């Protein structure tokens, strides 16, 4: 093996740094899934009858469905009868303020570099911390409430704002949309709800940190963001998971509804445990994320930095229904060791003069497989629509794979679609050049990868850039000069 390969191997095979578990007394359902479990979850959460019915309908649909097989990933099928579908940490009483949050839980966040107090004090980010499916702390709620903004856990939204939840849940991702969306709809534990009223510009970045905790627990989060006419919100979601041996299933659903002239910016850093060097353990991340630009001039922008999970299956999409609406997708997907990622986006142009932009940067190291899969669909009446797609792949070493699967369907002659794709390798010359300036091999690789991903990283809100830096071991550009 050449020196260069060795460097890349070492860099690529770095052990997962956030590996530990916190021992909470779990309040769990027995493993397996049937209608009783769905009822148990709904009862635990004191849900209204309509929501239980909605869950049961989803469950019955799910029973009839089969797992999707078209993605370029290979893994042993999860044993759905052996998954625990509900578990909650057992706080003595519900915390009324941050000070009442379980100190052990807060310590965990601090080890991740996510101190709630720091976040609050320094960045002005309101944090709704979700650990093992139950929200433990919500900040800034009062300030947000004065503007009419609702930002709370999903269960709270069900209790406090049932009419809103009822109106929008499943409106973007129907409960029978796909196998994992149906599963999520049946058993979702908690998640976040965000509502921005007409004409309101949310003054802070809304942020939620997710974290899988108790062993052998599926994580089924559900997020619903509704932005009324002329509103704006930037929403951040990030996660790191502790190390464990058994595969964990993560099947989240995110729905975004943007009304006329509303803008929603959704950013995420994903760092679920990827499994060890040999691919043992690690999270299965099968996520359905979709937004609809329901009104004219609406805009939805997805930015994601994907570094974790053993298997990723994720396509944050935009339905551009309103005329002049816009969709954006910026993605960095890094895979190492035995990781497999099949990720991309769908841009569905329905309205006239709609625009979409896709920038995807894949980085593969080790023996990983990294696929971009994207659909650009332009409907018949979507006159003068435009799409620009750029899909780049960077290879580290010669044992990994990068794949691009672009699908383009155009049913309108006045529209314009551009697709660019490149594949490159980190050069030995580049590494030597950095080293000759005093930058060690590992930092050189980080610097080069960072430069390659810059266009995407620059789209992250500043507060979140720090998290991205940590996960990619990179330094962000532009602080000077």
């Amino acid at each position: 093996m050449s020196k260069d390969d060795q460097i890349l191997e070492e860099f690529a095979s770095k052990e997962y740094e956030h590996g530990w578990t916190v021992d909470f007394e779990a309040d769990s359902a027995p493993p397996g899934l049937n209608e009783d479990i769905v009822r148990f979850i709904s009862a635990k959460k004191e849900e209204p009858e309509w929501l239980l019915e909605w869950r049961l309908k989803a469950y019955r649909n799910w029973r009839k469905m089969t797992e999707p097989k078209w993605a370029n990933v290979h893994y042993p099928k999860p044993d759905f009868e052996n998954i625990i579908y509900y578990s909650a940490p057992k706080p003595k009483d519900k915390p009324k303020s941050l000070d009442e949050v379980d100190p052990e839980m807060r310590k965990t966040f601090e080890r991740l570099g996510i101190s709630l107090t720091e976040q609050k004090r320094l960045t002005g980010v309101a944090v709704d911390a979700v650990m093992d499916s139950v929200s433990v702390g919500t900040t800034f709620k009062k300030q947000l409430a004065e503007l009419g903004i609702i930002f709370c856990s999903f269960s709270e939204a069900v209790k406090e704002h049932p009419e809103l939840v009822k109106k929008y849940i499943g409106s973007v991702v129907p409960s029978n949309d796909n196998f994992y969306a149906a599963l999520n709809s049946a058993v979702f534990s908690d998640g976040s709800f965000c509502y921005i009223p007409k004409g309101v510009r949310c003054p802070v970045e809304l942020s939620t940190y997710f974290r899988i905790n108790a062993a052998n627990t599926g994580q089924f989060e559900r997020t619903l963001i509704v932005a009324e006419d002329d509103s704006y919100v930037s929403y951040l979601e990030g996660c790191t998971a502790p190390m464990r041996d058994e595969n964990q299933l993560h099947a989240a659903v995110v729905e975004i509804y943007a009304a006329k002239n509303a803008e929603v910016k959704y950013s995420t850093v994903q760092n679920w445990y990827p499994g060890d060097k040999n691919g043992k353990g690690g999270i299965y991340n099968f996520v359905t994320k979709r937004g609809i630009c329901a009104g004219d001039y609406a805009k939805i922008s997805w930015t994601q930095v994907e570094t974790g999970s053993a298997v990723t299956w994720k396509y944050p999409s935009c339905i551009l229904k309103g005329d002049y609406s816009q969709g954006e997708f910026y993605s960095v997907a890094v895979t190492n060791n035995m990781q497999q990622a099949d990720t991309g986006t769908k841009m569905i142009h329905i309205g006239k003069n709609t625009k979409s932009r896709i920038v995807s940067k894949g980085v593969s190291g080790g023996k990983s497989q990294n696929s971009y899969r994207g659909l650009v669909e332009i409907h018949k009446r979507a006159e003068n629509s435009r799409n620009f797609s750029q899909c780049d792949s960077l290879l580290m070493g010669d044992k990994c794979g990068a794949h691009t699967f672009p699908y383009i369907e155009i049913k309108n002659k006045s529209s314009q679609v551009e697709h660019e794709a490149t594949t490159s390798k980190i050069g030995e010359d580049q590494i030597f050049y950095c080293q000759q300036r005093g930058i060690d091999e590992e930092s050189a690789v980080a610097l080069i990868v960072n430069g390659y991903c810059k266009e995407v990283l620059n789209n992250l809100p500043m507060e979140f850039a720090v998290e991205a830096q940590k996960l990619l071991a990179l330094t962000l550009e532009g602080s000077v000069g």
Partner: protein
Amino acid sequence: MLSIKNLHASIEGKEILKGINLEVKPGEVHAIMGPNGSGKSTLASVLAGREDYEVSSGEISFNGKDLLELEADERAKEGVFLAFQYPIEIPGVTTTNFMKTALNKIREHKGLEPLDAVSFLGMMKEKMKLVEIDQALLSRSLNEGFSGGEKKRNEIFQMAMLEPTLSILDETDSGLDIDALRIVANGVNKLKNDDNATIVVTHYQRLLDYIVPDFVHVLFNGKIVKTGGKELAHELEAKGYDWIKEEASIA
């Protein structure tokens, strides 16, 4: 400062350097000249620690340290700088960010705190003047789409920022027009002091009109076959390398 003894190096089994001896003291400027393929760039690469070359025998001592024991980045931290003949492009990384990273790595090695943004910017402004380089260029991706002259000026700018004790200029004059050559040479001259040294690797005497060497060494077939003062460069310019080759073959 630098002491090379009986250095032999090869690439892919082919011996390029066949017993180099060289002593460089602080404050000196040494020129390494020689025909194409004589091993000039190999010598520069071996000093900088490029992995492609295998050193089969010999010693390189630099300020009391065994240079051959050090990784390329450790050599840079100890003060060895190579101005590349063909500077490498790194897309998405600005020269500014590249220099900030490099400088702080070197400072860390010296046990110094990282430079804060204000001091770094101040330092940049000062060094930019030396090589008459534009701020806009430093905010662009490193060497990407730079002209030949811009790349070489950028190398000297980096040298100014990192303040090395030993600078090796590998064919820095190649691809430069006369104005760019003067700017680059001026930069190098301004950086010269009693504590640092420069090795200028060049094919032509032209650059040595601007960077005046204390010693000129002629490298031929992997060995230094002749050493003299700056007048040797003029002699080479006038007579070519053939007489050196003849002398070497007689010896």
